[in-house]
């Protein structure tokens, strides 16, 4: 059996906006190579948790340890080094509208490597090819569709060969075909590069298609209600809320 190695460890994490507490002292681990799903109902704070994991919002208390380094108390320099290991795909792609796709993807490469311009341009072409956008280097974000923007955003997230890629609602606003294509792409990236994938979503199709580990967040109890492989959670739901969520609101039959 393959030995699992913890890549992200969350301990006693409390997320709050002022006096309003979103989660109280939650714990979970994300293993290297996992496709980890953070799921829960709309408004339960999934995206806020992602913002804490990526350092955009400070945690009220608790620790986020990435590869043995405490991200929450790390210095600015340590954080920057850790963030180079991470790629993030935001809901709308978050591409810089005044730059072409090539310039968008080249940005982290220029920022963090000393590669020649030729190699950067080759890497940009490769990353665009990986997400199925060969030849779109000179396009501006306003000239491509929503699904293509997400894929271009993913190419940018993959620019530095990250060990972890975070996805915020990757399927939001996409048609089923584009959504399936993005799911396949996430799996391909995970399997080809061994990248740890962390996905925030409530799209059931995506959850079952790609996830091999998950947590279910609950806004009422401000805690994690269930964890594990989503397919297993569906087979043996630990509580009514998870069953309802994974079956689109069906009532649980009494055994």
């Amino acid at each position, binding site marked *: 059996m393959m030995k699992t190695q913890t890549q992200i460890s969350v301990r006693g994490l409390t997320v709050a906006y002022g006096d309003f507490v979103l989660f109280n002292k939650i714990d979970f681990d994300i293993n290297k190579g996992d496709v980890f799903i953070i799921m829960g109902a709309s408004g339960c704070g999934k995206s806020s948790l992602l913002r804490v994991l990526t350092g955009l919002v400070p945690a009220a208390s608790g620790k986020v340890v990435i590869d043995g380094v405490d991200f929450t108390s790390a210095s600015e320099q340590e954080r920057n080094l850790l963030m180079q290991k991470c790629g993030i795909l935001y809901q709308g792609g978050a591409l810089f509208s005044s730059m072409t796709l090539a310039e968008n993807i080249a940005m982290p490469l220029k920022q963090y490597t000393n590669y020649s311009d030729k*190699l950067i341009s080759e890497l940009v072409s490769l990353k665009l090819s990986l997400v*199925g956008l*060969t030849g779109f280097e000179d396009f501006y974000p306003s*000239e491509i569709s929503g699904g293509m923007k997400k894929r271009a955003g993913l190419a940018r997230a993959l620019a530095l060969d990250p060990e972890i890629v975070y996805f915020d609602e990757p399927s939001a606003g996409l048609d089923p075909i584009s959504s399936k294509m993005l799911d396949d792409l996430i799996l391909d990236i995970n399997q080809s590069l061994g990248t740890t994938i962390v996905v925030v979503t409530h799209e059931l199709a995506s959850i079952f298609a790609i996830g091999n580990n998950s947590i279910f967040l609950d806004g009422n109890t401000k805690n994690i209600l269930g964890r594990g492989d989503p397919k297993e959670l569906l087979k043996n739901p630990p509580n009514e809320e998870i069953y309802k969520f994974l079956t689109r609101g069906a009532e649980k039959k009494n055994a």
Partner: protein
Amino acid sequence: MTIEFTKQQQQLSLTIKGNIESFDDESLKLSLLEAVQKHKFQTVSVNAEGLEKWDSTLVVVLYELEKECRRKKISVTYQNIPTNLSRLIELAFMVDRKPSKSQEDSLPFLEAVGNFGISLWQSINKGLDFISDSLSSIGRWFTAKAIMRKVDFLFALQDCSYKAVGIVSLVSFMVGLILAFVGAVQLKTFGAQVYVASLVAIGMTRIMGAIMVGIIMAGRTGASYAATIGTMQVNEEVDALKTMGIPVTDFLVLPRIMALTLAIPFLVILADFMGILGGGFVGVLMLDIPYQEYYRYTKDALDMTNFLVGLFHGLVFGVVISLCGCYFGVNCGRNADSVGKATTQAVVTAIVWMIVMTGIITLIFEVLGI
């Protein structure tokens, strides 16, 4: 780390060993591709036995090599290559779409001039349409048919009235001060420096007060109108209004035009007062004009006509600034860059039109003898 290749009769063999990370050897890549281009190989064989670590820079080498081989119809075989590396190369070739952007050729001179003329005509039409829509909204408001929330009007009024008092007071005071200084230098040569009071009083009330308020409000409120409505356009809020059948001019433009047009005359009165105060500060404290004297000359110079001319300018500027701000906001594109452009265009256009309107009003008043 090594990447080496050997050429045999009909085969090129590439061997990869060790750690291939951050590989940036341009000359090797060039000679490899050159070899593929020049020789008539039937196969290219890649052996990665002994490859330890690798990253995207190795994928780039293999991807470029396979691309060239596919172009020349040469088969590529991989031996001992990590599964994930070969999957990645496969993935890079699984393109589902090709770009369809046409290259824009430079147009002949006459065609370019024609296109410019057409786009100018279209933007004039668009501007006139917007003004006509806004006038219709004002008309609907008079007949109580406009869909405008009072709270929007009050918020806009609050934003462009008392919140602007500080900046308008400060700038007008400084303008009065400068006007007095500049005037005093000239008037002193004739021993007529007491007329500084008249110069400042007439200058501020007739035009300077209104112009200064106009410029401040164009930069402050006009820009804010363009940015707010532009962001609503980006967030599809303007589309939502349209699909709900609510006229954009009623809901977004009307409260802003009304608020600014109502607020500006009061700000002009404030600017006149502060400007005269600034002039008095220089006259009394620096030019040693007795304050009773300064007050008398100021009072004599002030007349209702100049004061009303200033207020009229203010009213016109209010309409111009709010129309420009709202027009560029409503016609903003759908990205962050466009909001920036809309804001700049709103301020620049408002200031240009204010100057143009000042010229026209001055000419009309001159003819009318006002």
